């Protein structure tokens, strides 16, 4: 499903060359639930951005469902993000003036889905994450856990190939964090492919595989804790 071979990412800031990733090999299979761990500066976020097609690698090969995505046109990358990737962010990244329902609807709008289908789909997913009765609330009226559920519903709305979660419990208290972990586990059991970047061992132990990064390299490609 996802194959990364010798991925390198080098940032040049003025005279400085920062090698964020120094040759990553990573395979994620269908219906796999993996976590990516590592200290700050290890290249976790850079890897997440590359996996999510928000950024392109300096070197190496990235195949997403057999499609070479390293050097695609920005419009095609936008389509891939829209249809194959579901993002869940640490800080939720919901649109503040849109309701929960509208936030979930947005990826469908970019896809060009008809309004009736959008309504049906968004309602279905909000129900799935247990927020049916909160769907006309704006993010400011929701708790952190509820906001993260909205963003999970949003990530799922286009039936993505993979869900990429970046510290999904990082801004949550332990109780809501625990609930969110359960949501991910349920999704995995339903057949979704999930990659979580995290510091949180509580979430990492629930995954099938932990990939550890250090200094832009994979130091452990599949151990459990």
């Amino acid at each position, binding site marked *: 499903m996802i194959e990364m071979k010798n991925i390198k990412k080098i940032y040049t800031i003025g005279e400085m060359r920062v090698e964020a990733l120094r040759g990553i090999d990573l395979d994620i299979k269908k219906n796999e639930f993996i976590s990516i761990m590592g200290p700050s500066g290890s290249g976790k976020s850079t890897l997440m951005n590359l996996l999510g097609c*928000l950024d392109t690698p300096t070197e190496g090969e990235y195949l997403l469902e057999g499609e070479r995505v390293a050097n695609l046109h*920005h419009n095609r990358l*936008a*389509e891939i993000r829209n*249809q194959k990737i579901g993002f869940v962010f640490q800080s939720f990244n*919901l649109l503040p003036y849109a309701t929960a329902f509208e936030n979930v609807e947005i*990826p469908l709008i*970019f896809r060009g889905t008809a309004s009736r289908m959008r309504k049906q789909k968004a309602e279905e997913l909000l129900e799935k994450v247990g927020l049916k009765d909160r769907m006309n609330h704006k993010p400011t009226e929701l708790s952190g856990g509820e906001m993260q559920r909205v963003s999970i519903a*949003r990530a799922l709305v286009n039936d993505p190939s993979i869900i990429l979660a970046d510290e999904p419990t990082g801004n949550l208290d332990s109780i809501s964090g625990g609930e969110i972990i359960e949501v991910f586990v349920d999704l995995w059991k339903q057949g979704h492919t999930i990659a979580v970047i995290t510091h949180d061992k509580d979430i990492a132990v629930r995954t099938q595989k932990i990939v550890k990064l250090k200094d832009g390299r994979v130091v452990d490609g599949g151990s459990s804790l």
Partner: protein
Amino acid sequence: MKGFLFLKLFLRDFKKQRKKITLTTLAIAWGTFSIVMLLAFGEGLNKQLTKANHGLGEGIVIIWGGQTTMPYQGLGKGRRINFTEEDVELLKARIPEIKNVGGEYTRWEVPMSYGKNSVTEMITGLYPCYEEMRSHYPDKGGRFINELDLQYKKRVVFLGNGLKERLLGKEEAVGKTIIINNIPFTVIGVMQDKLQMGAYGEPDKDKASIPATTFKTIWGYKYFNNLVYQIKDLERAEEVKKEVYKVLGVKHKFNPEDERALSIWDVIENEKVFNKVMLGISIFMGIIGGMTLLIAGIGVANIMYATVKQRTREIGIKMALGAKKKDIMSQFILESLIIAFLGGGVGIVLTSIVVKILQAIPIESEGLQFLGKPTISWGIMIITIIILGMVGLFSGFFPSRKAASVNPVESLRYE
């Protein structure tokens, strides 16, 4: 319909920035107001001046006899050219392009009186064709000089409306007898009030007109003071003028190239020049209004730039969710178009109200008669809408390009 939810979201965002967006919208409204107002005044001025131009006559040329400056067929230069009825008949017969032609006798400072009122004014001896040719249209209940008046040399008079006021006041004039040069004349008609800009002699409203034949009998003029002709097709004015030189040149034995043999006032040519001047004025006014609108447009661009900055994170989120560059751009362009047309709509409504009010105010002063009737035409509306659309597009385009160049990685990190 992709835009609809974004429109809804924009309006929600609008509420948050109400003050800023309201001010910008007002700036656009003001710009629109000034551009439409200036163009409306231009249009009104144009309409009134055109009417005033036509007050003298539409498509007419006035000819006075001149003096030859070239020797011709053995005749020396410096001969005076004078016109008689033969010339009128000749032009009528030889040049089919001429619709009306007539000669005119003029006498200044003729005493006229009615009861205790007496004035000295200009009097002209005319033909029936002057009604159409020189816009001597009678007011209700009266008529202009006709063929019978000419034939029987009737002592009838057609009064200019200003002259009638001075002689008869508010009294009904038709049928009354006034004394001209100690001879009684019956009033057959009073001229309709008209705007007249150009005049030779007195303005038409201040003179009296009698049949040319009657005039000749009383004062014994041998020659017309001038001729007037009206043409059918304005496009052929120049050819007709040349033809007139040729025909009169043969009769009076002057070189048709000798321009000074005739003295010509080409009202048609004047009108062409006038139209060009009016177009120039309209363009000038449009530019001034456009400048005002441009400044407002810069205001819109400014607010859009600020919005892009404010919404960097939002743009990043949308990109992560699959927005293409063109989705981001079209959103900002749509927003600035909304502001432009919202402001434009307010401006146009405001202008329409002001124009309606101005049109309703009765204007007495003659100078203001030309200025005081601003008119909003379809042309003005179309021009304004095009300009507003351009202002909206341009003021949205550059900020939107900035928005589309947002790096999603950077903007998502940006807390």
